[in-house]
């Protein structure tokens, strides 16, 4: 049947959506760690620019950030190479969503590192740990535990934000649903299918996040 064909297309789009979310999350984690690092540096020359970029990105609508990056990069490339260069919607999506994810994640990371009891670091020093050992054996595993719930929430927000990348022409799940909706004149059916797929992905994610949250707390005695 006709609907089966469209559902296959939507499922193919789902793969694009998941790929986009994973790439943006990976990029965002790096941005977030760098942001958290820069914000904790005493030098105002690094701290204030980082803090203001984070503030601006967090205050702007996601759509505006996406369009600014997509059309902004196009304009910059055009002025450099003096001709029109097509920017891939996927790359623009990864950069924009990664930037948004990263600016929220930097706050999560900062909070997570601050949440570690200072005595732990002193204890590590007393045991003769090097700075790297201290970071990788004491600080990171514990910061991770504090960061997981926050990062999990950001991942759920990111998954839902991927829908807007369809507006700059990425053939993701949303775009396939739109095509199916306008071809069959059954918009409600196909947008509902898209909604159910999003619901499915977010529910699975929630289960995975819960698993990791419990796992990271397995040695914690209250």
């Amino acid at each position, binding site marked *: 049947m006709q609907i089966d064909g469209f559902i296959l297309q939507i499922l193919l789009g789902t793969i694009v959506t998941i790929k986009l979310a994973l790439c943006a999350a990976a990029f965002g984690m790096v941005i977030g760690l760098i942001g958290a690092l820069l914000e904790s540096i005493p030098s105002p020359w690094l701290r204030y620019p980082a803090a203001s970029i984070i503030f601006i990105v967090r205050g702007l*609508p*996601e759509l*505006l950030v996406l369009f600014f990056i997509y059309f902004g990069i196009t304009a910059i490339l055009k002025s450099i190479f003096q001709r029109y260069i097509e920017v891939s919607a996927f790359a623009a999506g990864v950069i924009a969503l990664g930037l948004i994810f990263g600016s929220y994640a930097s706050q999560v990371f900062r909070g997570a590192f601050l949440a570690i009891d200072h005595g732990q670091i002193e204890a590590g020093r007393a045991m003769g740990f090097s700075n790297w050992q201290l970071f990788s054996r004491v600080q990171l595993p514990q910061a991770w535990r504090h960061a997981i719930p926050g990062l999990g929430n950001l991942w759920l927000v990111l998954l839902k934000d991927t829908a807007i990348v369809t507006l700059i022409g990425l053939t993701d799940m949303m775009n396939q649903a739109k095509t199916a909706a306008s071809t069959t004149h059954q*918009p409600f059916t196909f*947008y509902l299918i898209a*909604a159910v797929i999003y619901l499915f992905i977010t529910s699975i994610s929630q289960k995975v996040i819960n698993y990791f949250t419990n796992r990271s707390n397995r040695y914690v005695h209250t």
Partner: protein
Amino acid sequence: MINILSYLPQLASGLSVTLILMLASVSIGLVLAILITMCSLSGFLLVRKCAGFIVFFIRGTPLLVQLFLIYYGAGQFEWIRDTWLWIVLREPMGCAIIALSINSACYTSILLQGAIQSVPKNEIAACEAIGMGKWLAFRRIIFPRAFRIALPAYSNEVIMVLKGTSLASTITLLDLMGVTQQLMSEGYQIVQFYIIAGVIYLLLNAIITAIFNQLLKWSALPQRQSG
């Protein structure tokens, strides 16, 4: 360099659409949020389950999908077109307000439910002790108390609604984002227009934050020694 002043009327009309969208959605959303919260505390299992499912569905799907589902999806059904609902649903403004307020209501309801759970148990016990009925205790003590607890997080929710209004431009509404895109496609002054819109959004953010800071100060209880 573009002459910003010549675009001022268009930007102002876009800003007014954004503000109307935001104020309408926040106020309808708040009323709906209180309703959903009361349903989720209801004694009837079915009512609780329904409220829980609506919140689960809305929080698990993108706002854009919800917006398209209402704006494009409603027209699929002949019987909707024959009812008075169609007067609202054929207008992009009506659809945007419906989608944004339902969305905001579900997120706010989660905040309120968390806040109600964190109302100190001894205050509820005190209500019972002086013979307040369930409803009276809820109205006079639990709800105002919960609202104070939820207020800081609620300001973030209002900012989320402001950011969400930009999606209304995808269903042909000329809000601040829609006007910006229109100006951009006319003038090819890409980056400048986005910067202007961005500055306006940040200013609105700052205003909302300032209002909520004032509300927090205004609603703060006098500090007492506890214990």
